[in-house]
């Protein structure tokens, strides 16, 4: 039997190999052709866009992709880069490290000269070296775990405020609210855990107390025992570091359980849906947020154009996604060519680039020199700038 199976195995694998090779050639043919495919738009200079297109974070990915495509169209309408047009190739990372490396290799295979995107930190980290080996610059627009900064092989630029920036803002806010017993709640993923741990360390370093550091599971609906536990510890400020959907649930159950103290949520919860889903319980909640279009005087035109084109208001990361392309275009112009090393050098030298979200100048570790975080509060069912 062992011999028989080997032969059959050989035939099967053979046919599969042929299929895969066929598919490989086919896929590279479709995207390098001039026809406008759904995933790849035509252009002389290809930009890779790794974002979650499937899975639970797909909404964010789609929103950012929209803004990126808008920016690309605008750059092209103005004549492109030194006469060449930009084009994008989207790679679905599904917020999963394994899928992300496959997507990254796919983008590299398609000959992209730069990468713009990146939503989930966990999916961004393992791809950095894949791009770096080919000298491809990566402008990370939303993901902001400190692990990205730590692991930066030199090609990566973060244009979202980092966890360090957000932590500073959080500590500032906690002090302003005169919090005594802070409780931090995270969700056990790379992003929320990073923010929670950094905040805990910073708050303790400032000589204050953290009464509890809790971890919930994504998709879990019942926080009642957590609420009771927090109340029994005389908590007067709860800091939620994960995403809005479960955040809204926690806020509701905190208020339902009779919790009277302050509630602060991190940038992952900065979404109008937080207000909608938390309802009356959400009133008064503080939100640490990346610069949202509606509070940026410079972004009015962008927000209108986005709404006209896609029929919805731009999400929390759309302005940064839009800025990423423009920053890249600016760097390419300054570099004078599309050589990876030249673009990386030009990006490093960026000084006071004016984006929708503010001025971009990179610190030596290639994160923003100045934090662009803002604090919002929910008042009468709306976000109000603090």
């Amino acid at each position, binding site marked *: 039997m062992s011999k028989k199976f080997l032969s059959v195995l050989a035939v099967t694998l053979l046919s599969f190999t042929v299929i895969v090779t066929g598919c*490989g050639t086919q896929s590279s043919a479709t995207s390098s052709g001039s026809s406008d495919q759904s995933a790849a738009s035509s252009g002389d200079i290809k930009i890779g866009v790794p974002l979650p297109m499937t899975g639970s974070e797909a909404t964010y990915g789609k929103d950012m992709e929209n803004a990126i495509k808008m920016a690309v169209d605008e750059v092209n309408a103005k004549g492109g880069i030194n006469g060449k047009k930009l084009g994008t190739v989207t790679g679905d990372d599904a917020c999963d490290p394994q899928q992300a490396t496959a997507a990254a290799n796919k983008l590299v295979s398609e000959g992209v000269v730069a990468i713009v995107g990146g939503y989930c930190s966990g999916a961004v980290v*393992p791809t950095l070296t894949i791009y770096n080996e080919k000298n491809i610059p990566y402008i990370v627009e939303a993901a902001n775990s400190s692990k990205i900064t730590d692991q930066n092989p030199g090609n990566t630029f973060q244009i979202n405020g980092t966890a360090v920036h957000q932590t500073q803002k959080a500590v500032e806010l906690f002090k302003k609210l005169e919090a005594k017993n802070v409780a931090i709640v995270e969700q056990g993923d790379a992003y929320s855990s990073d923010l929670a741990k950094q905040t805990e360390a910073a708050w303790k370093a400032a000589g204050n107390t953290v009464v509890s550091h809790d971890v919930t599971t994504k998709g879990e609906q019942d926080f009642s025992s957590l609420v009771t536990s927090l109340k029994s510890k005389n908590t007067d400020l709860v800091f939620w570091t994960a995403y809005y959907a479960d955040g809204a649930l926690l806020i509701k159950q905190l208020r339902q359980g009779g919790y009277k103290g302050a509630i602060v949520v991190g940038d992952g919860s900065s979404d109008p849906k937080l207000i909608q889903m938390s309802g009356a319980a959400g009133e008064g909640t503080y939100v640490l947020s990346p610069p949202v279009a509606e509070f940026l005087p410079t972004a009015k035109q962008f927000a209108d154009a986005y709404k006209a084109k896609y029929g919805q208001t731009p999400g929390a990361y759309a302005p940064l996604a839009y800025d990423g392309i423009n920053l890249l275009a600016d760097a390419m112009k300054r570099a004078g060519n599309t050589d990876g090393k030249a673009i990386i050098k030009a990006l490093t030298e960026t000084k006071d680039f004016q984006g929708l979200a503010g001025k971009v100048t990179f610190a030596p570790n290639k994160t923003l020199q100045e934090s662009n975080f803002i604090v919002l509060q929910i008042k009468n069912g709306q976000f109000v700038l603090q």
Partner: protein
Amino acid sequence: MVYSVGFKDRVLETINGKKTRAFFLSLLIIIVVLLPLGVNNYVEEVMTNTFFYIILALGLNIVIGYAGLVDLGYAAFFAVGAYTTGILMRYGLNFWLTIPIAVIFCVIAGIIIGGPTLRLRSDYLAIVTLGFGEITRITARNLKITGGASGLVGIQRPTIFGHKLYQITDFYYTFFILVILAIIVSLRIYHSRLGRAWQYIREDEDAAEAMGIDPVKTKLYAYMIGAAFGGVAGAFFAVKMTAISPETFAFTQSAMILLAVILGGMGKIPGAILGAVFLVFFPEIFREIGQMRMLLFGILLVIIMVFRPQGLWPERKS
């Protein structure tokens, strides 16, 4: 009908002919070896991923197919392997030296999981292994040494004979060699005393016991060997990805590996390989349709099972 049967037999005969077999097998090996010359990084990545799942599927096949035990937490072994290598390398240990340690840790994990639970009814074994899988993942998430929720990042790339393994092609060949080793080991075990003992236990445990086979001990060996496969795969996974996080070892991962084994046909080496190939290729081929592909995948899974409950490549009853 008569013709078709005759035709089928003839085809089978041709395929099974010694010369044809040798021809196809060598052709396959040549193609797989030469493939990186002609394709892009993406195809190499997909193939490497396939190799990786083949190794895991072959490992789980020993537990499920050979010994007939349910395991819904196989990712735990793969996690132990990956984390052991990742942590030891952080303390400066050479990658190649971490592999035997990773294997030992996995075998110990196999004993811990298997020891007290193998006497349980099969359905309870399912939930217990699932529970152990979750415990492993949550522990990795909560401990400092495993890097918490962010996991371990910046794991060094290994060197072999002065050559640093860092490009996808390097890993392509590395994992291909591992697949060949895994197949050889699987075959040897299947035809060993132990392999026959598992077969007896699967067919009739009481009779096997009467023949002097210790069922618990024999089953435990299956866990240990299956775990060792996971450990090796995990160790190489860690250096290929350079970053590992607890989410990679969630229940879905275990379910995927399980699917590969059962889809292909339990107990069969080509079945496990076919299952792994299907599992990796399907979502990649249908990448363009985005979210719909996983829906399609689910429907297809049901259809395959309904029409071929023994798997795509069932073990022939002799």
